[in-house]
């Protein structure tokens, strides 16, 4: 209706950021910066300073990428869960401890002879109950989530120690260990990847054609196709890289599948819509009749669910359950950090579970990359702080008119 004036490149760029796809830009930029640094810049410096005799891009080697994915998997699992409550404007400090309790329980159960699959189901159920219990207190008693989950953190840490008096426990059960060990045969991995890409493309094109039929505004074909192509490129790159080392590990497939499910729920169901509505304006959501309290409880139940999955993944990958790996360690802050780095707002109403996975990769890359250098522990910590800052600053600086720092 209005004559559209020509848009400059910058306008286009900032308009693109406003699309669904644009929400990935910041964290992808950060990830690219970190990978570039560890994968290209550092080896180059080593080469030129004579420290290395050849250009060794170990960081970007398929093997290290495989490691990196596996190392980030537990953080990512928790981060995906935490994202759900962050959308509501709540926080969960007990997620890592919940994961710990679940892992410990899993270890004890399989040790006492419960079959692995049954133990996993029990543990998932326990995780859901643990999360929902906190949600009940938050929603119905009205205590701030920070306080409830801080108490939960203490209580669940204690519970974990109770279950695990020795501080650690080997987990040998083949079913449990299998989750991290089983590999999808190369060919099947490729088929799976292509199927996912195909479905993505089909869904997008179908939607576009339905929009046309209904007379709705169309996405620009450029945006549409670049989205499909970018998606395909990422999927194919991941599958082939992992195949180049071993194959797609079952654990990653599960993580992606669960995230896809949660991603779909958060963006494409009335339930997900209400998460965003409550996060954006709880009072409005209440007034249009959303059951805000139940929603809150269910969101915490989902965190509990994801924490249980994280516990299972952790037990599977570490081959053991230890207090420090979950409750005592830095897992909690890393998981919340991953969600926030992914662009999810602590104030609620903005975020995405996919970004949480990317955020977890950012955090995971720091430790992974620095451990490949021979730096001292102190230097590693300092450098990781600096890299993290630089990586997230790139986006902030490239954004026209920077925000409030929230």
């Amino acid at each position, binding site marked *: 209706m209005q004559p559209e004036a020509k848009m400059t490149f910058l306008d286009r760029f900032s308009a693109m950021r406003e699309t669904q796809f644009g929400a990935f830009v910041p964290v992808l930029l950060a990830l690219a910066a970190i990978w570039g640094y560890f994968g290209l810049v550092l080896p180059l410096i080593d080469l030129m300073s004579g420290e290395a005799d050849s250009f060794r891009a170990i960081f970007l080697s398929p093997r290290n990428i495989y490691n990196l994915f596996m190392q980030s998997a537990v953080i990512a699992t928790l981060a995906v869960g935490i994202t759900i409550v962050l959308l509501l404007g709540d926080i969960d400090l007990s997620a890592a401890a919940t994961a710990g309790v679940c892992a410990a329980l899993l270890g004890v159960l399989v040790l006492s002879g419960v079959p692995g699959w049954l133990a996993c189901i029990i543990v998932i159920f326990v995780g859901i109950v643990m999360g929902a219990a906190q949600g009940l207190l938050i929603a119905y008693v009205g205590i701030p989530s920070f306080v409830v989950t801080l108490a939960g953190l203490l209580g669940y840490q204690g519970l974990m120690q109770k279950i695990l008096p020795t501080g650690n426990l080997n987990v040998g059960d083949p079913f449990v260990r299998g989750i991290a060990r089983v590999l999808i045969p190369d060919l099947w991995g490729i088929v799976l990847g292509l199927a996912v890409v195909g479905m993505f493309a089909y869904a997008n094109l179908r939607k576009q054609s339905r929009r046309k039929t209904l007379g709705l505004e169309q996405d620009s074909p450029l945006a549409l196709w670049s989205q499909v192509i970018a998606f395909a490129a990422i999927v194919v790159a991941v599958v082939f890289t992992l195949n180049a080392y071993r194959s797609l590990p079952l654990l990653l497939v599960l993580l992606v599948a669960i995230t896809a499910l949660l991603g779909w729920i958060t963006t494409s169901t009335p339930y997900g819509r209400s998460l*965003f509505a409550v996060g954006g304006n709880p009072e*409005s959501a*209440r007034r249009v*009749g959303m059951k805000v309290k139940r929603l809150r409880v269910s969101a915490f139940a989902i965190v509990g669910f994801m924490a249980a999955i994280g516990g299972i993944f952790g037990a599977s990958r570490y081959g053991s359950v230890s207090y420090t790996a979950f409750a005592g360690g830095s897992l909690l802050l890393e998981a919340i950090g991953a969600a926030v780095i992914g662009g999810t707002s602590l104030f609620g109403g903005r975020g995405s579970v996919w970004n949480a996975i990317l955020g977890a990769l950012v955090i995971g890359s720091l430790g992974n990359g620095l451990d490949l250098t021979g730096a001292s522990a102190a230097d590693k910590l300092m450098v990781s702080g600096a890299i993290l800052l630089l990586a997230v600053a790139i986006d902030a600086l490239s954004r026209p008119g920077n925000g409030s720092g929230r």
Partner: protein
Amino acid sequence: MTFENTMVGQAAPPAHLAVRGIQKRFGGVHALRGVDFEVARGEVMALVGDNGAGKSTLMKVLAGAHLADDGEFLLDGKPVEMSTPNDATELGIQIVYQDLALCENLDVSANLSLGAEPVKPGWSFLPHLLRPLDDLEMEVKAKKAIDKLEVRTLQSVRAKVGGLSGGQRQAIAIARAVGTESSVVMLDEPTAALGVAQTRQVLEVVKRLRETNHAVVYISHNMRDIFEVSDRITVLRHGSNVATYTTSDTNPDEIVVAMTRGLDTENGNAA
């Protein structure tokens, strides 16, 4: 009581929604002091009063958004429970809040369907909350609703509400309330931010609601609009009823005096 006393002229139509003796306090502020109010089907009841008289509070109580400290709710003469917004929705009450109650982080079409999102058919094995949203349907619905209100500057129903102008937002809030199945529609200063043409459309919508046998409550400070659309006028002052007038039997000056100074007999009437 003030209420019946001032029912002059023709007999009042049978009330569809009625409340009696509504009390509401906020800490030290006594916002509603035993208010009676009613509205019939097929009529537009205007609710007027000075700033801070308690109009919006009464609306929110009627919509279940505030819990009354005391008082009685009747729907078609039968007592009903009204303690959450859900109760109101289920009784067929829709409302445009003065503060609009939109979610700025969501887009126009999402806001228009908020709380009543359409889902795709054929997923009935899932609970309703987990069925796939029909977002194209939502967009179509939003486009129609916005067009009806003649908001021509809104480029896309996929724009986030946070970036909209005051009038554009108000139009969305109105479209949401009138676009939903209901028997009572309450509008709290719906045209405050609207332009001339959009205001016209809203008044048309209100008239159409009356014709389709809705009970309409209309709050406004604009006497012209009130005398144009309303059938009766309830005047509040300092959280109490002043009187209820039949529009055709009164005039703006009388109403303004009632709003600002009350009736002469008021001293004996305040609850």
